[in-house]
């Protein structure tokens, strides 16, 4: 009886120690967390980096830009992915916690406004899109479409895309309460593919591959700055680079303090021509020379 108990206690202790070990092993792994727009890209960057450096394991998680930045502030990740700039409040909170965030631009994303393939509307102005998502324009006929109610698809408030779109397209006004708050880019694409009168916004990489082939069932709208200027597609690389396409944004990674060791090495890989090739293959745009110089200044 006593012997049995001893064995049981021994096994329990062993289990505890073993689980503690795996936890510490996980902590040695580089943790990258944040934007759902970036999660696929960074996953692939990490895989090709690990193929060459098998000794530095890393884990890439999604959850939204806000989640990633919160994790960086709380010290539970090494790199935060975010698709919007860090807010003043967040930088202050990080500093209060003893963390000085360093931010790098690793790719450029043309945010695409998508509708169902069957929708006859093919271009909109920024004002029209803003009014639709604020709930002021409720019917497609007001923008030259069929006489049908508009069905809005957006992200949830922990998403950087949600905040970016709110600031740059909605003029910092409230989203319509009727907008469906979806759980990620893929769910918006899924929703609009089925919904004949749907409209949504997603990172361009979620609806087109690097050849510019658009996902079946989806149409990417051309967007113009205002009624008098020309409309451009986010697939038009030159227009995104020059800023003629009005809803392009940088995609960021932030580190806690100056990057060191494996984190620094990984960042350098992402910004190298090889890393930027992957960025382009994944459907995003490589960063321009100005941003590259800015990054390199911070890496030193």
């Amino acid at each position: 009886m006593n012997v049995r108990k001893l064995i049981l206690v021994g096994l329990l202790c062993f289990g505890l120690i073993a689980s503690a070990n795996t936890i510490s092993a996980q902590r040695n792994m580089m943790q990258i967390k944040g934007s759902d727009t970036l999660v696929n890209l960074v996953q692939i960057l990490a895989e090709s980096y690990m193929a060459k450096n098998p000794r530095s394991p890393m884990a890439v998680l999604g959850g939204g830009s806000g989640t990633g930045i919160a994790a960086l502030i709380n010290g539970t990740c090494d790199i935060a992915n975010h698709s919007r700039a860090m807010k003043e409040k967040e930088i202050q909170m990080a500093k209060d916690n003893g963390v000085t965030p360093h931010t790098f631009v690793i790719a450029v994303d043309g945010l695409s406004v998508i509708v169902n393939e069957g929708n006859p509307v093919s271009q909109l102005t920024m004002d029209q899109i803003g009014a639709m998502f604020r709930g002021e324009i409720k019917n497609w006929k007001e923008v030259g479409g069929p006489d049908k109610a508009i069905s809005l698809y957006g992200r949830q408030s922990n998403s950087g895309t949600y905040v970016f779109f709110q600031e740059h397209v909605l003029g910092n006004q409230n989203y319509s309460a009727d907008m469906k708050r979806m759980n990620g880019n893929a769910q918006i694409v899924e929703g609009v593919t089925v919904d004949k009168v749907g409209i949504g916004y997603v990172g361009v990489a979620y609806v087109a591959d690097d050849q510019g082939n658009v996902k079946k069932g989806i149409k990417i709208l051309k967007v113009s700055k205002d009624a008098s200027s020309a409309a451009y597609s986010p697939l038009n690389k030159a227009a995104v680079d020059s800023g003629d396409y009005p809803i392009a944004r940088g995609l960021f990674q932030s580190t806690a303090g100056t990057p060191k060791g494996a984190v620094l090495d990984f960042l350098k890989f992402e910004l190298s021509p090889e890393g930027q090739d992957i960025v382009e293959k994944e459907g995003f745009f490589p960063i321009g020379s100005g941003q590259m110089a800015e990054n390199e200044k911070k890496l030193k």
Partner: protein
Amino acid sequence: MIKTKRTSFIRIKESAIRAFFFTNGILAVFILLGIFVFLLYTAIPAFREIDIKEFFTSKNWNPSSPVKEEYGILSMIVSTFLVTMGALVIAVPIGIGVASYLSDVAHWKVREILKPIIEILAGIPSVVIGFLGIVLFGPAIAKITGQSHGLNALNGSILLAVMALPTIISISEDSLAAVPRSYREASLALGASRWQTLIRVKIPAALSGIIAAVMLGMGRAIGETMTVLMATGNAPAFPSGFLSSIRTMTATIAIELGEVPYYTTHYYALFAIGLVLFIITFFVNLISDLVLHKFQEREL
């Protein structure tokens, strides 16, 4: 001498065992109290800035609004009840029907096969069921009801009904099977048909168990998060019926708690929602307990 030593040892062992079980019993009470106190403690600061009347009567929930922060939970309370009641309307008749079939109609071989299969249904992760809602039920509902999409309260109700069914069927069947054989024999001997026996004798006799089953199913439906989060569209607008997209209390907490800065009004308000949910489930359980007692008394 030896004998008394042995009896005293047994006595000590006995009281030790009793103490052990008493601690276990009391522990559940303490955990419950602890949760309640914690919720109360983190929820109350919310009302330093939010008017409590506005909290319960305003339809607008918009804590991260750049224009004006609003904290009204009426829409999500109504949404939660809408989707739960819908689930019960679907699940209760089917559940009791299946339970009656299994206990009274089905051949025992059929029952032996069917019951475990139904119980396995309870083990399907809610994410999987939510996914079914997006790709299977959603488009089907859209087609049947002529809506542009199927991400609405009806979809959530159907999925929650699917999730509540195993509980309702399993416990109802158990209580129907526990009705003494003599009841059935007496009823049949008096010339009642099998249908009359089932409806007039067995189900009333098993009613307390069936009500408990329904209440447990309701508890599952009210607290379920992932499924409704995926399938109901999460539009925070006040619902106008089963075909509008809704956002429940659980979904709001799940979406926003991940990115909320700690110790802000928004953070406390989310816990206030949790407290309201806790009180609602508490009363559901209390009422079901009272109903159960009432029926048990009548039986005597």
